[in-house]
């Protein structure tokens, strides 16, 4: 007999929702009417996507020489942005899978957004290796397939690991996202009419919410979460090994895998905050995403920022402590060399700014969190820029040092990648319920005829 009390079911996170059906009404109305603000943002994003494909198209037509990439800096904005976007993706899986396994009750309100962010961020990240290889029509060479010369990829190369890690990550996170959405698509189907109803009928695949469906669904969801959890840790580890497996000073460090994973989650949580603050405002989700949720996200951000700062300090300490001339020079060059500004942006945004999150008043102030989250996003992009560029431009031989300057094409693609991400995210908020309807009901108190504790007749 159900005896759960309001507090046991986590009612305290959503005190203003009275009836289970209210959730459908409040969330599904978001899908029904696009406001002017949405259209304005969508137009902006579409224009940015135009810029993205124009820049990329020009680079395909004229050649990779349009980028600033050359000896000795062969990896630049494209690889920086690849790592940045893969990193953004990570917190989505953290919130949807890891916090699911840990039964964190606050995740329900934000996880659908975070998961959508994951899928679109990996979609964005996945374009950068294709842009970076230059001759994109040969990109399929990355995939192992039986070809006429019996040549296979070198599976000892971390770059090939990365192909497997990122494609697996995209597939699994997309599947996880879609499976979790099916019950909500059925809810959207039941609330819609006409053409939209037909659409939801197809993509909800005839979900009816029977006991049998929920039973297998619940178990499948746990297994998917259990598989996604080590996956998310492995993907950014593999990305970090793209660097750490090479002997470039500034890259060749064993701390890279945990350092990258923490950084990824740090930047991703910040991105979740950046996305949810305007979404909550525009769609009127104040009853669903409360300051308690922001407080929890901010704490996660604070924790990972400390790990990241610790990793920075360890890197500098180890460079000094190793006594190795090359390594010491590389890190001295980071702080005071040609790219000193990038390093100081990184240290300020990722080390200094998050100190404010120690204060509860700031953690619970939504405008403050929004501003901090943007600083974190900037800082984390520059972190990758620092790792990629300052290490390559100043390797072993002084006569092989050089300076890299991002070209206009690279800037166009970088700016366009944010628009590409935003384009998909905006579409998502209009087509799929942006807050998980059925999962939210799990943490609401169930409607009971008799008071809890009363005798069952």
């Amino acid at each position, binding site marked *: 007999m159900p005896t759960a009390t309001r507090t046991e079911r986590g009612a305290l996170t959503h005190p203003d929702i009275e009836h*289970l059906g209210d959730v459908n009404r409040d969330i599904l109305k978001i899908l029904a009417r696009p406001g002017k603000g949405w259209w304005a943002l969508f137009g902006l994003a579409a224009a940015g996507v135009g810029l993205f494909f124009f820049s990329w198209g020009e680079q395909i037509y004229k050649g990779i020489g349009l980028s600033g990439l050359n000896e000795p800096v062969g990896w630049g904005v494209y690889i920086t942005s690849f790592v940045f976007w893969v990193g953004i993706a990570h917190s989505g899986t953290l919130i949807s899978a890891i916090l699911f396994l840990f039964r964190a009750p606050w995740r329900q309100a934000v996880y659908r957004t975070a998961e959508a962010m994951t899928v679109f961020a990996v979609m964005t990240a996945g374009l950068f290796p294709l842009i970076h290889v230059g001759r994109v029509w040969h990109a399929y060479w990355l995939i192992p397939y039986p070809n006429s010369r019996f040549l296979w990829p070198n599976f000892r190369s971390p770059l090939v690991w990365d192909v497997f890690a990122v494609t697996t990550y995209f597939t699994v996170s997309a599947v996880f996202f879609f499976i979790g959405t099916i019950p909500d698509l059925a809810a959207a189907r039941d609330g819609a009419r006409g053409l939209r109803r037909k659409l939801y009928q197809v993509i909800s695949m005839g979900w009816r919410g029977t006991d049998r469906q929920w039973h297998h669904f619940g178990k499948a969801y746990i297994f998917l979460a259990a598989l996604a959890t080590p996956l998310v840790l492995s993907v950014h580890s593999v990305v970090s090994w793209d660097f750490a497996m090479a002997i470039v000073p500034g890259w060749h460090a064993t701390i890279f895998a945990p350092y990258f994973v923490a950084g990824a989650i740090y930047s991703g949580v910040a991105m979740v905050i950046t996305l949810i603050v305007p979404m909550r405002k525009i769609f009127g989700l104040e009853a669903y995403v409360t300051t308690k949720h922001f407080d929890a996200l901010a704490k996660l951000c604070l924790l990972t920022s400390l790990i990241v700062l610790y990793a920075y300090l360890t890197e500098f300490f180890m460079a000094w402590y190793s006594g190795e001339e090359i390594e010491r020079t590389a890190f001295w060059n980071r702080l005071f060399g040609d790219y000193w500004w990038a390093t100081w942006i990184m240290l300020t945004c990722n080390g200094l700014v998050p100190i404010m999150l120690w204060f509860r008043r700031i953690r619970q102030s939504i405008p403050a969190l929004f501003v901090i989250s943007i600083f974190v996003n900037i800082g984390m992009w520059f972190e990758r820029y620092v790792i990629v560029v300052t290490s390559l431009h100043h390797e072993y031989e002084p006569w092989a040092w050089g300076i890299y300057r991002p070209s206009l094409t690279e800037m166009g693609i970088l700016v366009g990648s944010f628009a590409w991400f935003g384009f998909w995210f905006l579409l998502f908020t209009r087509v799929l319920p942006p807050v998980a309807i059925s999962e939210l009901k799990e943490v609401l108190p169930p409607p009971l005829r008799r008071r809890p504790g009363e005798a069952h007749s």
Partner: protein
Amino acid sequence: MNEPNTGILAGYEYLDSVVGAIEGLKKAGFKELRAYSPYPEHHIEAAMGYGQSVVRVFALVGGLTGTATGFAFTIFTSMDWPLVTGGKPIVSIPAYVVIAFELTVLFGALATVIGLFINARLPWLKPNVVYDPEFSAGRYGIYVEVPPTRADEARRILTEQEPAELREGTEAPHA
């Protein structure tokens, strides 16, 4: 004997009502039961008497297939064209662990989804006759198929819990 069964669909506003009705029907010996809920409710699952889901077998077999494929594929391709790179052995197991791990997760996840689709009867393409749109909003439901002789008994148990809605209708027996 060959008379068609009667199907009764009841909708409830309250969780304890639906759980009470399921328990009542179970006690009376009705087996053809189906419950609806807008979210996964473990009280209903417990009342229906579920054990472990076979989806876990799909997850395990899929994962192990992925591991085996990962190692087999990398080892086969290295032996197919033996070429020493980086002074490492032709078959470099530690490096291949990464590929095997990724394929474990990939195959495991896809097999889990296949297991879910098979066991939860998805996609369900027949029209939803025995269904109420309220079941995805805030209402719980029970559908029971009974021989005509016992229909009154089942109806009495369902009515005892004060359903918000009670209607009759059968659905072609599903696979």
